[in-house]
């Protein structure tokens, strides 16, 4: 710490410090701070403004002159067209994201329990190997994965499209789900309780099911949200493993946006529709969303 001489702490009386009146300097600083915060918030929200106003414009108002203006004759035609174009893919994305999130969370819970509380020899090394799987660029597995999946779809055509994507997202979601559950169990489940159950003769499966699983809800919320969001937002796997008829909503949105003679209202409405589910999750369950984010930092 610094070695500046201690200034005699003026009159000791007015504590707590927080209640004292603020000096003019501090008031100005507070105002500057607030102005900056508002400015940055406006910058961040600017694309949202563009999306919303453009999505309710008619073609006559896309032009350069009125690019940033509010629509004179708002219409929902863009929304209707976007809905029509995206609805089948939206349904596919819902199935994909829900199933992939559920399965990888379940696997993550079982793995996390073992890596935190029921270690086998070499468990830490295996766990680190799992973690690395979180960081790999999927490009590095994509060529053989695509070949493998095409093979699989040839022998089992009913797995083509969304089931294939479910398999991919589930598998590549195992590392992060395992990490989240392991960290959760390491602190939330006291080893003494498990020890006691073991002394009473409960086997591992019983301990997991009756003691660990019932207290796992907080971690499940985190992994479910995280996996739902990543599966929903993914494009790379979708591009390599599906096509325009079987792909999720990101694929369909890309198709919509790359159409010749872009219909801006339809495209921008499509962006809003395709983003709404994850945004709702974020707004309603933001707290858990953030803990998922944090766990990405391994700590």
């Amino acid at each position, binding site marked *: 710490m610094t070695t500046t001489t201690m200034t005699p702490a003026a009159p000791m009386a007015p504590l707590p410090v927080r209640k004292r009146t603020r000096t003019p300097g501090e008031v100005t600083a507070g105002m500057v701070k607030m102005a900056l915060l508002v400015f940055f918030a406006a910058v961040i929200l600017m694309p949202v403004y563009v999306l919303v106003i453009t999505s309710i414009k008619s073609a006559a108002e896309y032009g350069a002159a009125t690019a940033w203006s509010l629509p004179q004759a708002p219409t929902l035609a863009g929304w209707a067209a976007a809905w029509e174009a995206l609805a089948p893919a939206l349904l596919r994305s819902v199935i994909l994201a829900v199933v992939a999130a559920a399965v990888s969370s379940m696997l993550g819970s079982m793995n996390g329990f073992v890596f935190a509380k029921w270690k086998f020899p070499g468990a830490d090394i295996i766990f680190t190997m799992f973690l690395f799987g979180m960081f790999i660029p999927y490009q590095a*597995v994509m060529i053989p994965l695509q070949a493998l999946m095409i093979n699989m779809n040839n022998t089992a055509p009913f797995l083509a499209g969304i089931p294939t994507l479910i398999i991919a997202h589930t598998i590549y979601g195992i590392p992060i789900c395992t990490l989240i559950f392991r960290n959760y169990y390491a602190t939330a489940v006291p080893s003494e309780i498990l020890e006691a159950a073991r002394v009473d003769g409960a086997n591992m499966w019983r301990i997991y099911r009756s003691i660990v699983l019932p207290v796992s809800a907080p971690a499940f919320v985190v992994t479910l949200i995280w996996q739902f969001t990543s599966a929903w937002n993914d494009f790379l796997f979708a591009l390599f493993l599906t096509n325009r008829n079987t792909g999720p909503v990101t694929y369909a949105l890309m198709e919509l946006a790359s159409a010749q003679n872009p219909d801006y209202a339809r495209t921008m409405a499509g962006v809003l529709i395709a983003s709404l589910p994850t945004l709702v999750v974020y707004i309603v369950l933001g707290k858990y969303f953030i803990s998922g984010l944090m766990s990405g930092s*391994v700590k």
Partner: protein
Amino acid sequence: MGRVKNWWTGLLMVSPSILLVIVFVYGLIGQNVATSLEAAKTRSGRVLAEGGLANYVELLTWDRYQHALWNLLILTLVFVGGTMFFGLLWALLLEKGVPGEGFFRSVYLFPMAVSFIASGVVWRWLLDPGMGEQAIGLNKLFLMMGMPALQSTWWSSAGKFNMAAMAIPAIWQLAGYVMALFLAGFRGISEDQREAARVDGATEFQLYRHVLFPQLSPIALSALIIVGHMSMKTFDLIYAIAGQNSYVSEVPATLMWVQLFSLNNPVQAAANATILLAVIAVAVVPYLIYTNRTERAGR
């Protein structure tokens, strides 16, 4: 609790996941590396790849690949620098608590919940290169604000640093994430330490410089690794903004797609992906080992 007596039941429980990770992460990586070392010819007999390490020499000396690497370097420097700068700035503005903190936090973080495809569609419009009469997007906004000098061709010029513009939407999307990490870091430092420093006569600047920032360095490292590795993988965003065949905004991840499907050269695409993996591994593996060690020391 550490290791238990009947550890094999734990091993049994994680064995499906271990198998999946070994096959789909490490097995497919191995297969990709094997592909990258193959020899390949076109149907007409032209040699695409000589085989062995010559494939890598070939790729690394290809001017198109070097151009993509340069683009990636610029993108990564601006992307990482920008997210760290704004993330830290926003965390500093918020960390002492301001009115409406929850609102600002949510606004800064919300782009994280949106897919790169969705945001890419909007940013393609915002970063439209049209100027003057043709201007839409940001260029039009600058004109309206009376700052025509700020107009730019953004990413679509052939300039050496055009990829800095591609970093803007990436920063928009992820700066809030870095903010959340730093904010959690600030909140994790006990109020006593600040009080102690103030009592010792430290100025606010000294307090941050000598007391708070040193404790945030593990978080800064995490943020650096996470954003850095995301930048290396950037594909969706460029695909959505620039289209699938844009030379000027090409990075290795998008070039791989071109090699695979336009140039029909999976061998070189595999070599490209392997290098991407190697670059990320060089940064991530030491980081994982380091985190693993500090975690064990903390136990």
